[in-house]
């Protein structure tokens, strides 16, 4: 059984919850299982946000926030540097042999925290996700895409097609009509639709970039060893 209990920490406006949904949708598209926990707080821009996703190839029973994650994703460096988080310090509850994915262009982990993470045998991946989003999609709003791209690049839980399907579901939703006939769409809808399609394409480019990043850096997880039963 492959099981990832993920805690995502970021700040309001980064699409933390959106990317949790996409993560879940992609798992579902792959015929696997995911559950997410909506966080009921007062959300606002730059205020701490947390989202929790469980992903597995087996059914998931448990509910509630992920208190003891084996994957922690930090979407904003200020989660660590300014303590902008509901969970302090950022690695609280991390299980041994887990992974931490951090969006930062500089090494921001204090030495004492590094020691704890080392003892837990955690794998740490630090990428400049915001920079990547800006360079490739032309907007830092795609930071979340860079982050989930890297997660899927490392874990290989789903394929690119599954991620694309999840993005379509999220961004085009019910408005996506593959064989709708262009005459049926008035220009306003068409324009809006085109804009959404462009958004989708850019997001996919960001995701592809960080997936490749995981491959080039040899960060891809090895297949689970077969356990004799």
């Amino acid at each position: 059984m492959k099981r990832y209990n993920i805690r995502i920490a970021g700040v309001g406006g980064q699409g933390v919850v959106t990317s949790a949904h996409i993560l879940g949708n992609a798992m579902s598209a792959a015929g696997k299982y995911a559950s997410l926990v909506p966080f009921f707080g007062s959300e606002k821009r730059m205020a701490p946000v947390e989202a929790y996703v469980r992903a597995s190839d087996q059914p998931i029973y448990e509910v509630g926030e992920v208190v003891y994650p084996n994957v922690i994703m930090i979407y904003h460096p200020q989660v660590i540097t300014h303590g902008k988080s509901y969970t302090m310090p950022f690695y609280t509850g991390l299980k041994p042999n887990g992974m931490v994915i951090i969006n930062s262009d500089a090494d921001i982990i204090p030495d004492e925290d590094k020691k704890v993470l080392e003892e837990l045998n955690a794998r740490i991946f630090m990428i400049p996700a915001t920079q990547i989003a800006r360079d490739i999609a032309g907007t830092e709003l795609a930071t979340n895409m860079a982050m989930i791209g890297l997660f899927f690049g490392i874990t290989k839980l789903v394929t690119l097609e599954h991620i694309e399907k999840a993005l379509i579901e999220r961004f085009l939703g019910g408005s996506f009509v593959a064989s709708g006939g262009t005459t049926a769409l008035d220009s306003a809808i068409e324009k809006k639709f085109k804009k959404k399609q462009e958004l989708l394409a850019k997001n996919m480019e960001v995701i592809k970039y960080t997936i490749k990043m995981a491959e080039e850096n040899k960060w891809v997880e090895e297949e689970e060893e077969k356990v004799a039963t």
Partner: protein
Amino acid sequence: MPEQRVVEPEHLILEAPRERKFITGSQAFAEAVKRANVDIAIAYPITPQSETMHLVGDLFAQGYVKDYYRAEEEYGAMSAIAGAVRGGARAFSATSGPGLLRGLEAIVSWPGHRIPVVLGIMTRVVNAPLSIQPDNVEIAYLLHSGLVVLHAENQQDVFDFTLAGFPISEKVDVYLPVVVATEGFFVTHAKGYVELPPEDMKLPPRDPYKAPVPPTDCEIPPARIQRDAPVQKSNFMSYLIHAVWQQEVWSANRRAMKWIYHYLGGPIEVVNPKADVFIVASGCAAAQGREAQRYAEQEGLNVGLIKVKSLRPFPEKEIREALKNAKAVIVPEHNIVGWLAKEVKAVIPNSGIVVDGPRVYGGMTLPVELIMEEIYKALGIKRERTYA
């Protein structure tokens, strides 16, 4: 809305083909009401119940439910429910935490008045400080009033228990209200897979003449009790009338058990019956327990799960039998008083094997890791705390 045809409860609940949907617990309540041929729904909004009753309101707009209104508050809602059911209607309502307690005087009079109805409870913190989170201490208030109380683990249970609740409550030998409780947010606002029968089928309408007492006869209980309340009689008549009627209510409550077997496969579910250590849990805690049981199995530990579906009638015999060789019993709960642990201790001869907990309260998450710690302790396995 599709044309719905009436089918027997056995067909709709046990035989009809089912299709898998990914829906919230609130939607699961509404999907059950949609197929239950409900005449009237009355409620007063409160978080986290509001979404369910909003969806039931949509069902009224679509024509699935014949009448619907928002009452003045919960006391009014629950009293009106009694009136509607007395008048021969099939009714549904739902509430949460403080709303439940506000309506409680009316609700705990339903069994004595023999009101067959289904009431959804989406648990929420009661008492101060105010919170909307899913602590389930409120269920303790329901256990001593004669209500049939079912506790749903997930969205699938919500659907199955609610739909089966109507025929169970209306059986002539039961004729009591059925409560379907589940944790707010954890179940009501999260999505899970639910196998649903077709929406073009519904239960037969309620037949109010199929009752232990003819609805029009005012000379025998429960109508007689209403007209000539024991309070108007001598003390000795008061004692007697109330005593025999409460005996009958609790007998009826026990008689619900065979219908719980019939429609829901029994009051408990046992995973790994030959285990040394058992987790006994209901509602959401059973989901956490199920996860812990799986982790334990992967670690080669002989751990089992007993999920309690029915809190009233309480499966005394079944739990005693299932635990007869247990060495330790762990009872995880979402409340501070530990009402389930007390119930379990009361029905086994060796209550010392029951571990009080783990418990979380205030509606917080019950991490599977806390249950695992109790498992290691029970099995005498020394483990370092393995997380930061």
